[in-house]
């Protein structure tokens, strides 16, 4: 087992290095920081001096290693718009995003797990068709369109929920206020994830239900309730672990668009404004961070998977 874990970590290291190379290459492709300097009042000599000061006269791979060295010290560079350090900007925006992502993950699991299991147990019955159709709807509706519909219904028509920000302007905020602001973005994020997860859990449970050990359990005559709750559900934990792992990148991506629509003051909103103002150090900092988080999430999923499922082939 520990051999497997070490092997998985060793495979992840070159991928991690590759991610930093891709990230750096994209940032270089996007444009050099010298371009901002150029203007009628800046002499060529000044640009040249800045080039040497920034180390841009050195070959590409040396620049990459300098960048990597700074990265290891937690320095992600500086925004070319606000001159703030990127790591500080990320630090100050990550809280609301984590709150949104965590809540959506929990809500989507609360929907998808019972619905997926119900659907599998009642395969080809009316309830199953209803759940599967709804799940297709969840994964087919664009997040921004669902957001607009919710805002139209709950903010414009009914006036129940606020449509933007995290707290009401001019107030202290507080738990209840934040909760009100969270409801719609969480519904949108959770709906799209639950859509695909329901079908994933459904097919995983269907597969479990066809196993020999469940036939044996049924043959013992211990009753449908015990068969499903004692034997099937425990094994359904394995696909749920996978689902959580699969959701992390979806959450990061979804948050960018949803935060933009709801003006939720998190990483996504920061990234979108960086994208519109072409603030590449900020964009690539967020990309790098999310790629590393996804990589770690995948690694943890794989290891958990091996721990939860004793039959998995460890080679």
């Amino acid at each position, binding site marked *: 087992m520990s051999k497997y874990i070490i092997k998985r970590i060793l495979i992840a290291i*070159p991928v991690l290095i590759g991610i930093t190379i891709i990230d750096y290459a994209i940032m270089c492709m996007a444009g050099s920081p010298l371009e901002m300097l150029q203007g009628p009042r800046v002499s060529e000599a000044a640009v040249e001096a800045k080039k040497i000061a920034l180390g841009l006269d050195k070959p590409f791979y040396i620049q990459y290693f300098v960048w990597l060295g700074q990265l290891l010290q937690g320095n992600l560079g500086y925004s070319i718009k606000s001159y703030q350090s990127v790591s500080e900007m990320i630090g100050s925006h990550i809280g609301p995003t984590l709150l949104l992502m965590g809540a959506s993950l929990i809500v989507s699991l609360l929907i998808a797990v019972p619905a997926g299991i119900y659907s599998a147990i009642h395969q080809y019955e009316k309830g199953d068709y209803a759940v599967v159709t709804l799940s297709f709807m969840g994964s087919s509706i664009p997040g921004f369109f669902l957001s607009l519909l919710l805002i139209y219904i709950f903010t414009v028509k009914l006036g129940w929920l606020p449509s933007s920000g995290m707290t009401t302007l001019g107030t202290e905020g507080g738990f209840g206020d934040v909760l009100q602001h969270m409801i719609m973005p969480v519904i949108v994020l959770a709906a799209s994830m639950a859509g695909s997860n329901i079908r994933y859990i459904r097919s995983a449970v269907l597969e479990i239900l066809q196993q020999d050990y469940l036939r044996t359990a049924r043959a013992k005559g211990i009753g449908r309730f015990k068969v499903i709750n004692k034997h099937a559900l425990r094994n359904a934990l394995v696909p749920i672990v996978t689902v959580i792992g699969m959701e992390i990148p979806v959450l990061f991506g979804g948050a960018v668009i949803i935060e933009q629509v709801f003006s939720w003051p998190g990483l996504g909103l920061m990234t979108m404004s960086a994208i519109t103002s072409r603030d590449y150090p900020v964009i690539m900092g967020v990309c790098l961070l999310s790629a590393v988080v996804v990589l770690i999430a995948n690694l943890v999923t794989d290891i958990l998977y091996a721990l939860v499922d004793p039959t998995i082939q460890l080679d």
Partner: protein
Amino acid sequence: MERKDITNESYFQTVFRRFRHHRLAMVSLVVVAVLGGAALLAPVLAPYQPDEIVGTFSGAPSKEFWLGTDQIGRDVFSRLLYAMRISLLVGILATLISTAVGVVLGLIAGYFGGVADMLIMRFTDMVMSFPYILLVLVAAAIFKPGLWNIILILGFVDWPGIARLVRGNVLNLRETNFIKGNIVAGMPLRHILFSEILPNTVAPILVYATSVLALSMLDEAALSFLGLGVQPPTASLGNMLNGAQSLTVLTRQPWLWIPAGVLIVVLVMAINFIGDALRDAVDPNSRR
């Protein structure tokens, strides 16, 4: 019910017979055919030119303009027909590109194994680590947004899933006797890869491609909605929703955004249903 004799059925007949069981997919097939046909025939069906100013600003739906007019007086119904054309074009071309890239990489990785496999799969891991939407957004920020760039970006970002799928299938097929027989018989590599292995893995690729098509259309819509995709005056389903970011449009002029959004949902859902039914239909273990 009389049972039909299915002993001499061809592969396609079997698939179609199973596909027909899926009632929602049959309805979806009709929906896609009708909407696709309407998109193709847009120049014939549209009552007005899509970019021509023909009416009042933001006029409500009327006999003359079935779905009203937009902020600068263009006919929404005509624009919708042309938008569907663009969105389907983006989806289909992006899917073709990503499928082609994924199939080639997957075939190479699966068949040759060793270093080639390791390099390709690690590269796949790297690309998959970046959240998909973020990568598309970054690419859209670097390259000028526009119709052809969006197609290329979506096409070249969404291949890893197919590459993995094809690789897995090739690994399984390589162990089968008919492929081993081909190798022993000294058949040329190109023949083995493209005439023996590829046809045996077409069905799962097709199923996967339908979900890529659905996803690409959703992504085009999201990008265009954010203003990073298809640029006006060309209409796409996503950029027609862009106007709804303004509060007046959202609250007072629902005809400007609801029809486009509903069309996206209907198209994507129909494609997903078709994909789901195809998955069941081509599954060799299916008993239906």
